[in-house]
């Protein structure tokens, strides 16, 4: 197990290098540091010296991949790619291009509001979706099941934008149950959290319930369920005690991969509800064209993705003792 995890972590290194290579190519080769300086300092009345000074301040004055002016190892290390990538190993994200703020401390501060929205949405959505799915599986073959699935597909076909706009309008503006958007510190933030959580759950019901229903149905058609029924157990016990336990394997492994991303925040949710989390941090950076922040978020995203994959593999061994990671 331990050797497996170490091997997977080592395998992550070339992937992270690859991700950095792609971002470096996109942000420095296609859009040169000179372009960046002009975008940030403005087009008119900018002197060559000011551009050079800005590039030097942000460490963009070095060559991209190979520094032919240096000797030995410095040929590779005294470059934009190395200078910007190496600190990422100890999660030093550097400073932003536009406001010159420390990205790392921003991430540390802003991941909590993101988590405050994402975690309840995630947990409640799983429960709600599973209850709906169990209900449909219990009613399988009846008209209620057929129409339930049609309803799921219909829910899946509605853009999340409509759920957000509609929810804000009906629950926030007309019924005045919750504030439409905003955030507060500590315990006072709860009233701002409820609305995005409700909307997030509603938006996830269609796809979620349909997926879990298929998982349950697959499980119900297995031999051990027939045995349980033959023993004379009630349909409820068969479904909830025997079926649910075994259906947890595909459900868990499907869910674990998104666990790390709970910190990451959702771009549109946070933009609509003015939550000061990582999602709105990213979207502000996009609008301000602050590429240092976008680069940091890309790197963070790929770390979380790889973590999710490793967690998925570990969760396999936890729920199914037959699986051994070698």
């Amino acid at each position: 197990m331990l050797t497996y995890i170490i091997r997977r972590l080592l395998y992550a290194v070339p992937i992270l290098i690859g991700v950095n290579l792609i971002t470096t190519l996109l942000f420095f080769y296609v859009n040169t540091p000179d372009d960046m300086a002009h975008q940030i300092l403005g087009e008119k009345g900018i002197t060559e010296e000011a551009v050079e000074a800005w590039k030097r301040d942000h460490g963009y004055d070095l060559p991209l991949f190979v520094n032919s002016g240096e000797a030995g190892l410095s040929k590779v290390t005294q470059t934009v790619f190395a200078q910007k990538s190496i600190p990422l190993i100890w999660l030093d994200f550097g400073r932003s291009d536009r406001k010159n703020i420390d990205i790392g401390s921003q991430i540390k501060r802003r991941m909590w509001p993101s988590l405050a929205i994402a975690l309840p949405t995630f947990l409640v959505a799983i429960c709600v979706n599973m209850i709906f799915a169990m209900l449909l599986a219990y009613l399988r073959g009846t008209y209620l099941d057929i129409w339930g699935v049609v309803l799921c597909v219909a829910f899946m076909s509605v853009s999340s934008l409509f759920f957000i706009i509609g929810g804000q309008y009906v629950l926030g503006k007309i019924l005045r149950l919750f504030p439409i958007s905003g955030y507060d510190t500590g315990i006072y933030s709860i009233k701002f959290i409820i609305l995005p959580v409700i909307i997030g759950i509603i938006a996830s019901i269609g796809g979620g319930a349909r997926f879990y229903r298929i998982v349950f149905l697959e499980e119900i058609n297995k031999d051990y369920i027939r045995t349980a029924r033959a023993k004379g157990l009630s349909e409820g016990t068969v479904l909830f005690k025997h079926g649910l336990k075994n259906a947890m394997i595909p459900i868990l492994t499907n869910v674990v991969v998104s666990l790390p991303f709970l910190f990451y925040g959702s771009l549109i949710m946070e933009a609509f509800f003015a939550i000061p989390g990582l999602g709105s941090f990213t979207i502000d950076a996009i609008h301000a064209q602050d590429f240092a922040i976008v680069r940091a978020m890309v790197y963070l995203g790929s770390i979380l993705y790889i973590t999710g994959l490793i967690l998925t593999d570990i969760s396999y061994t936890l729920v199914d003792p037959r699986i051994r990671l070698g």
Partner: protein
Amino acid sequence: MPVILATDIIMFLLTVIFVFLALRVRSEGYLKDAWRQIKMNKLAMISLAILILYGAVALADSIRWRDPVLNDNGEAAIADNGSTIYSAEALTLLDRAFSGMRLSTEKTFSAPFAERQFVKENIEVADGTNRRDYPELKYPGAHILGTGKVGNDVFFSAMKGVRTGIIIGAGTTIISIPFAIFFGVLAGFYGGIVDDIIQYVYTTLSSIPDVLLIVAFMLLFGQSGYQGGLVNEADTILNFFVLNDRLFWLCFIMGITSWTGLCRLLRGETLKLREMEYIQAANAFGVSKSTMMLRHIVPNVTHLVLITMVLQFSGLVLAEAVLSYIGVGVGAETGSWGNMINTARMELSREPVVWWNLLAAFVFMFTLVLPANIFGDAVRDALDPRLRTK
């Protein structure tokens, strides 16, 4: 004077593929069986009819040409060097077919089927005094979904979003399919170092958050090209072809973020097929490796490609709306439901509420995505029931 955008070519390609498939379902073995099964599903057939209607609108909106500018005598104007002057507006077949709707603009908002404007104005009464009231519309009762802020017909605007939706939904997959087939089959067939490299590439690509990759790419490439609306001479090649088309770049980068799933699927299927008897037989006959892949493997994975294409469609259409909402999707002048939602959001906070823009975008999107989901499920069940759970 014809004008062809890069995305128009995708639309033509889609039409060709559709016609090809429609002809093949009558003759080819497994397609014929699948088609028979889909035909029995009434809901899927209704969905297909709706999808074809949407496709026809999108195709009509992709055939465009520029008219000559007319001079005072009603003849085509001639420039000094003897060439005809053409208008910068490249109108499509759809624009021309619905020119009544396109040109019947009002001053500003008006509700669906309204006789009078939505906003009060100063109106001069016969005795010379001014009165504040809702003025009569130029085309009362003609706008079935009302008019927007600048008086445009909302139904027509929503219809202009159809082409964008279809191209994003299907064109993206068209762009990514060749990559996915090439790399997926190669990785599965050769194994070893080739497999390792290809796996590394797609793991790296899929570890980057999709939205951020699209955002970065669109910020760098999308800002300069054709954004929709008037055709600028400087954007064209040989005066009629527009390669630097923002919608095309959006398709391209969304294709890059979405090919990895199909690639992984094809790799797995090829790994399985490689061990089949008929491949061993081909090997024994001395068939070359490239022929083996082209003739024996690729035709046997096409059902996966078809399934992926129909299942991805609806997700991509929904993603386009979100991207356009963030401001990295299609250009501001391209008709798109994401753009409509973006403007409609502000209108909800007006008093009284302007709701028809949002309703139009919702209805048009829903009636495209729901049939696409239903038809996609039917195609998947018919072609490969085992994929149900995935």
